[in-house]
């Protein structure tokens, strides 16, 4: 049983990294970013490609993927999202379009070998990241088998969640982000540069998605459409947890990740997903604003 919970916890962790970015950007900017999953995918490709060409290991790939995804996110914010402020449906469609473009660009460049365009070292769209061997050998503590890679995922997530909490609640930038979430007009009238802060926020959330991508790459196949389903899971977490609530996001991803993990092992993946959706629907019916929404919006 503890092993099942452990697997659920590692699923929750990746879910949390994906949802944190979505929660902050949706809360602060009211933007539904359908390309968030592609930022996860770009993080995963960053890990694979930097491993092949730069011979970088997992630990260096994490910050590198953060930077790459953050840069792509920043460009997306400046080129697309900033121009569609306050038009939530338009941003949804536009970012969905961006998601498709990013997917196809990656597929053209690194995907299935494409009429002779082939990058040496990359397989036919089924890449994987090399995980250092000490993270692949299970060990036992007190008779309980521990999977090191899953522990590593949980550790990275805990650290990044703490970092996010610190940035949001203990820095001037975080105060500005929270003020914008509550009331962007009053925030602007108090001298907060809403566009600049939002761009930073968006880049940070994108960077977290990139890190989630690297962690996923360690146990999943890296392919161009790997991110598309993660954005849906991320939004489930945001909706259940309550927009803009750090605590809500943490608890919702723990809940959904565990439900997914437990039912996947007891039955199968497909039934597990159905159960997750059922739980989400029930929670939304019960609390339409999510578990921890603040009152004012």
């Amino acid at each position: 049983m503890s092993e099942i919970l452990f697997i659920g916890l590692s699923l929750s962790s990746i879910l949390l990294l994906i949802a944190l970015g979505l929660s902050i950007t949706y809360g602060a900017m009211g933007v539904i970013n359908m390309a968030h999953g592609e930022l996860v995918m770009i993080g995963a490709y960053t890990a694979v490609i930097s491993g092949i060409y730069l011979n970088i290991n997992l630990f260096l790939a994490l910050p590198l993927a953060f930077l790459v995804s953050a840069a792509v996110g920043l460009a997306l914010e400046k080129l697309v999202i900033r121009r569609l402020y306050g038009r939530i449906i338009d941003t949804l469609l536009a970012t969905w379009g961006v998601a498709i473009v990013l997917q196809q660009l990656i597929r053209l460049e690194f995907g299935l070998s494409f009429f002779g365009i082939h990058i040496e070292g990359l397989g036919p769209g089924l890449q994987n990241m090399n995980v250092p061997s000490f993270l692949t050998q299970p060990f036992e503590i007190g008779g309980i088998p521990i999977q090191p890679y899953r522990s590593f995922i949980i550790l990275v997530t805990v650290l990044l969640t703490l970092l996010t909490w610190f940035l949001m609640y203990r820095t001037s930038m975080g105060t500005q982000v929270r003020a914008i979430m509550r009331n962007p007009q009053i925030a602007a009238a108090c001298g907060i540069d809403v566009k600049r802060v939002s761009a930073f926020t968006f880049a940070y959330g994108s960077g977290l998605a990139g890190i989630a991508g690297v962690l996923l790459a360690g146990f999943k196949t890296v392919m161009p459409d790997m991110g598309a389903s993660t954005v849906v899971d991320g939004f489930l977490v945001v909706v259940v947890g309550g927009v803009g609530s750090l605590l809500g996001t943490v608890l919702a991803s723990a809940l959904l990740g565990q439900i997914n993990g437990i039912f996947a092992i007891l039955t199968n993946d497909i039934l597990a997903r159905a159960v997750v959706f059922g739980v989400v629907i029930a929670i939304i019916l019960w609390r339409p604003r999510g578990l921890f929404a603040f009152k004012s919006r």
Partner: protein
Amino acid sequence: MLSLTHVDSFYGRSQALHDMNVTAPKGEILAVLGRNGVGKTTLLRTILGLTDRSEGTISLDGDEISSMPTHDRARSGIAYVPQGRMIIPDFTIRDNILMGGFASSGPRGIPEIVPDLFPYLMDNLDRPGGVLSGGQQQQLAIARALACAPSLLLMDEPTEGIQPNIVEQIEDIIIRLNRDLGLTILLVEQNVPFARRAASSFVMVEHGTAVEAGRIHALTEDMVARHMAI
């Protein structure tokens, strides 16, 4: 001095201000009068750049500000005490006040005058803003605006919805802010006797434009009856 010349302002496609001309002399209180829904709040929001779009010129002490984004207008010395206070309920009183500090150039801090004006706030800095009464929230909104280190204060019906014994206190504070700190104040007000007591000049708004303006002693009962009676 703040002056608006031929200002039109829009929410989406609907025009809320038509050819508005307003001058607020430096260091004085300008009362903005008129019925509900004639564009008084829109006037304040336009000065801060919070409407969807506006045309015409707005200048503050000779600097043209109408092309600036809202936060730069705030940083150039305009602070806003909005209708309904708009304090952030889950921020502490301290954080609500300090929010204004993002508009000031120096380090963010609680303005010196705040403990003197609002001792209650100073004694409860760590409580959430949402637990305060209407009058206390109004005090908090004023303290937040002062943290912007403003030269011009835009106040939207500061005594609306506040218990009567606090109203007089708020009124006295507004007069003090003008007299002691030399703040220029645009005061949107329904209470004509208070406007007469506090302001040096007035502008009467109807249908999104200024229909009368002048020194406060030129405000006749006839004008009040014509433009404010329901």
